[in-house]
């Protein structure tokens, strides 16, 4: 058997069931590697080793009693955007530095009910606003990858963002899986940069209850894993209607694991011509074509499709997401929870608290959002963006008359170094050019590792499906995974 930290969830479950391994024996090497992950990668905001040891013991007891859940004993990291009862939850912001939730988010409750062992709360961009994990108030996360170029060994690369800590931990074998959230690409883009699988479910598939809100019409929680089968299993556990989230959808949860290894014969896979953007590196285009050829060889039919409004997605996103964020983040006022910085009067207290508590990127987005929603500008910006959003959604609806799935790159480049692309916010926003349209349309999307770039760093391909058709997405992702057989590991691992 491989080292416990190298196992997939599927392999670990089999080993646990066969009593080749106890949950404690599985948890321990992960727990002891946490400090290593922390000192080099800064991937955690908080390590919860004591809790993990306790949960692992309880898991063994459950298994002995024949009451093991679907994910019993699986060591996971939880993005520090999910409220965890009694465990500090910061959203990587100073404004929530001392916040200890008195309730459990629905997604983490489902994971704990299924038996997971929580290793810690993973680092992220502040309030999930970023594509490189450099906006965290607790410092940037460093990728476990360094690439083929020896010059890179001193360059610290980003893991992507906003779920950067989760991606770094899963890629580095420090956690078997992790939760992420995806508002504009925050699961899929870091998955691509870190060489792991990241699945953003359909909007409404998983409950948002208890997840610190960024942009409520776009946010969705999902799994970050090393295999497609693990993502399918984790989705089966976390999906479902929740009366506490009025936007969660009351639809049955199929057994997503049956998609693994299923035939893709006859599936029509669309290649959107508008995703061939100017300046896209040739190797990404080549990888994309290779992915299409692999799916064709597996029996799928590849057709060209058009998504004419693609180029407007980012502009729409950078009105809608900040507008919703400026409204959501109004709750951080220093009155009921979080940081309070005194002022001369009540308004002064609000302004000081928010001015000190929020970091630069968060302040920038609150300002854009406030501007876009203010009197005189609402129609021109917010309403206009919502109208273009419908056109983008309608493009996908049209495309899905002709095809069952869409194949595209996940990100326009491999990982870049911490400090690069930081001077110009728009340069940073361009990281999400292939992922943002999927959030605007509310569709499911997955990033699957597809190879290494010339720089020796991972690149992912993205499969996008119809609303609530995660099953077909997972089928094709599984076929792609099998054809690619990505077996590269980052140089820094547990």
């Amino acid at each position: 058997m491989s080292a416990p930290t190298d196992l997939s969830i599927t392999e670990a479950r089999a080993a646990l069931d066969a009593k080749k391994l106890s949950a404690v024996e599985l948890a321990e090497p992960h727990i002891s590697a946490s400090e290593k992950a922390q000192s080099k990668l800064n991937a955690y905001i908080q390590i919860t080793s004591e809790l993990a040891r306790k949960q692992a013991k309880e898991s063994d007891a459950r298994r002995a009693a024949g009451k093991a859940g679907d994910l019993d004993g699986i060591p996971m990291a939880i993005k520090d955007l999910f409220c965890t009862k009694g465990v500090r939850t910061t959203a990587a912001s100073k404004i929530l530095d001392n916040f200890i939730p008195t309730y459990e988010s629905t997604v983490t409750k489902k994971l704990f009910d299924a038996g997971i062992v929580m290793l810690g709360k993973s680092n992220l961009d502040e309030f999930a606003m970023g594509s490189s994990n450099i906006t965290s108030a607790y410092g940037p996360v460093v990728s476990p990858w360094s690439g083929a170029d020896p010059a890179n060994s001193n360059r610290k690369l980003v893991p992507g963002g906003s779920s950067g800590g989760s991606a770094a931990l899963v890629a580095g074998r420090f956690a078997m899986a992790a939760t992420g959230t995806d508002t504009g690409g925050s699961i899929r883009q870091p998955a691509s940069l870190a060489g792991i699988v990241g699945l953003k479910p359909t909007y409404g598939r998983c409950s948002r209850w208890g997840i610190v809100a960024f942009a409520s019409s776009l946010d969705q929680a999902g799994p970050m894993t090393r295999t497609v089968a693990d993502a399918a299993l984790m989705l089966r556990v976390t999906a479902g209607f929740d009366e506490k989230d009025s936007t969660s959808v009351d639809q049955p949860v199929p057994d997503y694991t049956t998609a693994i290894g299923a035939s893709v014969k006859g599936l029509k896979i669309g290649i959107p011509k508008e995703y061939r953007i100017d300046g896209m590196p040739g190797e990404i285009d080549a990888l994309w074509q290779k992915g299409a050829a692999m799916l064709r060889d597996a029996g799928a039919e590849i057709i060209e499709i058009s998504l004419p409004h693609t180029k407007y997605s980012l502009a729409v996103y950078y009105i809608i997401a900040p507008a919703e964020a400026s409204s959501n983040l109004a709750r951080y006022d220093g009155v009921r929870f979080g940081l309070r910085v005194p002022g001369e009067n009540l308004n002064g207290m609000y302004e000081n608290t928010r001015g000190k508590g929020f970091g630069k990127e968060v302040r920038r987005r609150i300002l854009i959002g406030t501007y876009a929603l203010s009197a005189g500008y609402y129609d021109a910006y917010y309403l206009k963006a919502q109208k273009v959003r419908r056109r983008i959604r309608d493009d996908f609806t049209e495309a899905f008359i002709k095809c069952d799935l869409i194949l595209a790159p996940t990100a326009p480049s491999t990982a870049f170094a911490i400090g690069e692309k930081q001077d110009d916010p728009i340069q940073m926003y361009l990281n999400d050019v292939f992922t943002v349209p999927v959030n605007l349309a509310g569709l499911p999307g997955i990033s699957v590792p597809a190879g290494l770039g010339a720089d020796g760093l991972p690149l992912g391909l993205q499969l996008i499906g119809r609303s609530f058709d995660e099953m077909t997405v997972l089928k094709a992702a599984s076929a792609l995974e099998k054809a690619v057989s990505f077996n590269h590991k980052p140089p820094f691992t547990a």
Partner: protein
Amino acid sequence: MIACLMSIDQKTVAKIAHLARLKIPEAEQNQLAGELGKILDWIAQLDEVDVAGIAPLANVNDAFLRGREDVVNDGGKLEDILANAPSKTADFFTVPKVIE
């Protein structure tokens, strides 16, 4: 039209910052005016899109808010609610004096 709206100066930033109850030092306001101006310039490309007759899209699932029985189904969480209060007295959050 978005294009004709643009001109973000330091005064505008100060005004939006106040609306958002964000204290931003004056020096930073100038820098932000430049950054926000650039972002809004870039967003002005939306002017190219014909949206005549298109309804705004607020929720992708076209969901309507679900109703439920009008009954009390939660509560009694005074301690939980106050647990993270930065300042409290007895069973209340406390804030700076509002009424003179």
